[in-house]
């Protein structure tokens, strides 16, 4: 899975994080190192969709939190993916 929007949502599902924390977390759990431009492109889009929102902070490192609609979207996407994964694995087993 390399869709940056899903990776960001998956990262925020654990708790609020700022940009650099998200970058490290994604690298840890998905093995994907997002570039700064790609990461903030995804954050921009997710915020515009209403799936994440910034948490008020005085620091330049502004944290983001996942919204309920973002959580729903992530759940829906992951369910679809897991269905694909289960089917694929089952077929590999019987092949």
């Amino acid at each position, binding site marked *: 899975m390399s869709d940056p929007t899903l990776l960001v949502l998956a990262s925020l599902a654990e708790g609020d994080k*700022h940009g*650099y924390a998200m970058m490290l977390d994604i690298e840890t759990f998905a093995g994907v190192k997002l*570039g700064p*431009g790609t990461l*903030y*492109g*995804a954050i921009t889009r997710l915020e*515009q969709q209403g799936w994440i929102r910034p948490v008020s902070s005085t620091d330049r490192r*502004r944290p983001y939190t996942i919204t309920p609609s973002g959580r729903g979207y992530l759940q829906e996407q992951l369910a679809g993916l897991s269905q694909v994964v289960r089917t694929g694995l089952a077929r590999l087993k019987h092949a």
Partner: protein
Amino acid sequence: MTRLAKWMMRLYPAAWRARYGDELDALLADSGADARAVADLFRRGLQMRFSTGSFLKLAVVLGGVGLLLGAGLSFLLPNEFTSKATLQITSAPISEGMTQAYPGFSLNERIQQMVMVVLSRSSLYGIITDPALQLYSDERGSKPSEDVIEEIRGNTHVDFVALPGGRGRRASAFNITFTYPDRVKAQRTVSAMVDSFERFQQLSQQRPVITRWNNPAAILEVRDAASFPSAPFYPKRAIVMLCGFLAGLLLAGLVRLVLRTGFVARRFFLVAIVLGLTGLAVVAVADRFDVLPYHYRSVATLRLRGGNAGQVPVLTADVLSRTSLSTVINDPRLQLYREQLRTLPLEDVIQMMKKDLSVKRVGNMQGPIFNVTFDYPDRYKALMTVNAIMNDFEEANSRLFPSASATVPLPTPSVLEVLDQPSLPVTPSSPDRVKMALAGCFCGIAASVVIAIMRNRWKPQTNVPLDAVNG
């Protein structure tokens, strides 16, 4: 590298930077910036720039950039000046008897005859090498004289001008123009050409018919001297370029079939365009170094003045006979079909030459008019071969259709006047800066249309309307 990364942030729209700039700056401070991060910021910044903002804004910006580039480019190109002279040829008062003696010889034909002589290779070579003019000195040092002659011919134009003639006379006028980077030289060259016209006029009035062969029944005239092929006849250069582009696309398709995942699969459109352009570039380089198997065509137009249509096939059969063609093939000055002669018998090479050589009737005006064309990979040899074939036609005409008395129609007596002396150009005729700037503007607007179409294809990760971000 961090400084470069921060500079890349300028690629992002101002509204986006106002909202996310500080955060991105803090991220770069924490994570550091390597070359990959810089490239990522550059790519996403461009995508953001092209995927936000209105089409109108983009068109204005790119149109303005194109306008500036076009105008700037026009100032980099050297100025060229065009000098012009107007000449008039008037028929002398003709008595009734004379009119019947010289039927149908129009003044325009007379001008064409003069132009052919004045713009002939030998005449132009004389002008180019005139030490008083010093034309094309750089080109003469680096190019064969045939190429320089073609260049001066390309920069010289003769246009007919409608003028009323006097009572009992006919008149026809024409402009001769020459374009050159040096305005004084342009004027002097036109003067030299006008002198050539006057000299030819004087000579032809003294000696109306000049022919190498005595007393042929019909005079073989060269209406158009053998052309020097500057562009290949086949395959067409544009088609070869297109083939190069299509080969690149095909290669991209094959790579896509083999590599079903990864960068090629994700960015197939981009890969196809890059490989297509690479194919185009490879063909362009091969073209530049004359590696491609081009064939060049030289054409000459001949007229058998006073002859009849039946004579042309007889002459053609003689000129294209095996004996005649084998002489041309074995001519040590031409060196035709060297490779083929090593492996094939002469008879086969003659058949090959017959396929490359053609004689075709194209009209009839005071005698049959016909074209002689020859296709060959070497453009100089193509030209020289057509000249050799023309000589063979002259020789055959004199040998096969001899006549005891010459029945050559003399040209109508005429007077050549210079109506306008060669002008000294003040303003450059090229480059046309306004046109170039407008062309640049047009290209910019066209690019904005292409980008607008591409936006829907790219679907970048940062495709977000900024008003929504700000809202």
